[in-house]
């Protein structure tokens, strides 16, 4: 549905995106993940024909973004970073205006308007001026605007910014419900969002794509070892040395007195049973033993950090950080 080939965008000397290539299938939801200034918005602006790329080619539904921009624009719903709302119009007037711009009229327009007002929960504010609405409502009006002509392709630049947690969940549900019938690209720097709604993640940093895969596979691929968190109530003094003797254990980090340990083992080898047996036989007071999977957050940090830091040696530190991380969203694999 969306095909991007080697696009580069330069602003004078500054290269915003550099030979970016990716594609989105019909009905797929793709997350564009990256720190601020990574080139997410630039890529989206090229796809929506707001600006042309310096080099390369992008097509949407088979139409070239540069040469057949009208055909592309008709098929895209776009929510920019700042919701493009006219403060002096009411929600209804605004949606009618946008609908007409996109070629809707008469009964079709009325139906589309009431569908989006309903879908985004704008019923109570539909007669109010957008200028008097809160940030969250404006964001939803912006989404309604992108959806009103029911486009096959949706491009959403940070769709959940400015919403409260309940609204965020609603919008994520909405995006999930669009999957299958719509191709969606959404940019975000909130990682759980990418894991929650997307089938595929593209991580972009410094204008380049540094990784592209499903959220699960990304975290698996970037792991060099399995990590296990272990908590003992009565660890003996030589516990670290004895844990190291278990077959498959590569390394042990830990905080002896508090009883928290982090074990690393070879990929694909589950050492939990051996560890449990050792701890129980010796009556060390085993109270926790769990596999830690790398969260997307770890992957993201790892990929977007500078090259010199990307040595295997820093793995342990990252792993320990994630072991302590309470927001561990990952699913054990």
């Amino acid at each position, binding site marked *: 549905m969306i095909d991007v080939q080697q696009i580069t965008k330069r*602003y004078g000397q500054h290269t915003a995106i550099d030979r970016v290539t990716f594609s989105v299938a019909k009905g797929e939801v793709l997350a564009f993940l990256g720190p601020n200034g990574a080139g997410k918005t630039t890529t989206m*602006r090229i796809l*929506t*024909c*707001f*600006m*042309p790329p310096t080099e390369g080619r992008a097509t949407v539904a088979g139409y070239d973004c540069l040469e057949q921009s*009208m055909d592309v*624009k*008709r098929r*895209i719903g*776009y929510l*920019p*970073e*700042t919701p*493009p*709302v*006219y*403060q*002096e*119009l009411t929600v209804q*007037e605004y949606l009618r*205006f*946008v609908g*007409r*711009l*996109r*070629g809707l*009229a008469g009964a079709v327009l009325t139906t589309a308007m009431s569908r989006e007002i309903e879908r985004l929960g704008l019923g109570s504010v539909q007669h109010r001026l957008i200028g008097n609405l809160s940030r969250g409502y404006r964001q939803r009006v912006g989404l309604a*605007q992108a959806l009103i002509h029911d486009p096959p392709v949706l491009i959403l630049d940070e769709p959940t910014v400015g919403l409260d947690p309940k609204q965020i969940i609603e919008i994520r549900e909405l995006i999930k419900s669009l999957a299958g019938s719509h191709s969606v690209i959404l940019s975000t720097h909130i990682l759980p969002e990418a894991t929650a709604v997307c089938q595929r993640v593209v991580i972009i940093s410094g204008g380049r794509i540094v990784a592209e895969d499903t959220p699960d596979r990304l975290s698996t691929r970037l792991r060099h070892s399995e990590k296990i968190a272990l908590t003992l109530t009565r660890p003996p003094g030589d516990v670290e040395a004895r844990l190291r003797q278990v077959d498959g254990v590569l390394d042990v980090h830990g905080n002896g007195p508090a009883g928290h340990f982090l074990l690393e083992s070879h990929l694909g080898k589950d050492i939990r049973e051996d560890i449990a047996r050792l701890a129980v036989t010796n009556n060390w007071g085993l109270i926790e033993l769990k596999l830690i999977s790398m969260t997307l957050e770890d992957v993201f940090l790892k990929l977007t950090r500078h090259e010199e830091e990307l040595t295997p040696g820093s793995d342990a530190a990252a792993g320990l950080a994630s072991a302590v991380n309470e927001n561990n969203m990952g699913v054990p694999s």
Partner: protein
Amino acid sequence: MTRVNTLVAKELRSYFVSPVVYVVGAVFLLIVGLLAYIYIVFTGAQAIQLMQVQGQAQINLNDLVFRNLFSSVRFVLLIVLPILTMRLFAEEKKLRTFELLMTSPIGLNEIVAGKFVSVFVLFLGLLGLTGLIPVTLALFSDFDWYPILTGYLGLALLGALFLSIGVLASALTENQIVAAFVSFGLLLFLWLLAGVGSLLGDTPAGQVISYLSFMEHYDHLVRGLVDTRDLVYFASALVLMLFLTHRVVDSTRWK
């Protein structure tokens, strides 16, 4: 075309919700009304003097009231119209609604046309209200309507030119104040070209420069002369300004 209508309707709606139109409209009508009052009272005083000296008076309202009025309204338009046009593109860029327009399936021609037509309609509305001045005068006196109608044609064309320059200035920046000042500057420059032209006199350069200024073309219409050359001047200047606007808006995408 329906999309241009949609845009025009939206722009007019935006104009009428903002206080700018009411303030600018009120000031415009007040100043024009005041100018008309001054010219009429002045003419009346002259008539009384003539009556006393000659016992009868033939006063030409066309010369004494309307020609003066049409000349003065130019100045008012120069000040008022940039205020009306300054928001057209600058505000869209500032509030990021520009992205909505540019990513909607609507051509740049249609966007520029929609912006221009909306402010032109607004201006014609204001101009229409000043029509009350000749209509009221016609109740109490006799004058020739023809030069008044050509004068209004001149004002409409002059307004269209001023507005197109204002639209261009608004496309150049996202700051409304800057947009207003750039259009003031451009309009004053065009005005002063007439002065430069008359300094150079009847030389080829002088004629070319005089032609470029709107002054002589407008004066012809105010005097009741409808000459194709003047109409061509206004039409081509308008097309040029709107074309430049199109290019400027298009080029912002490439930066």
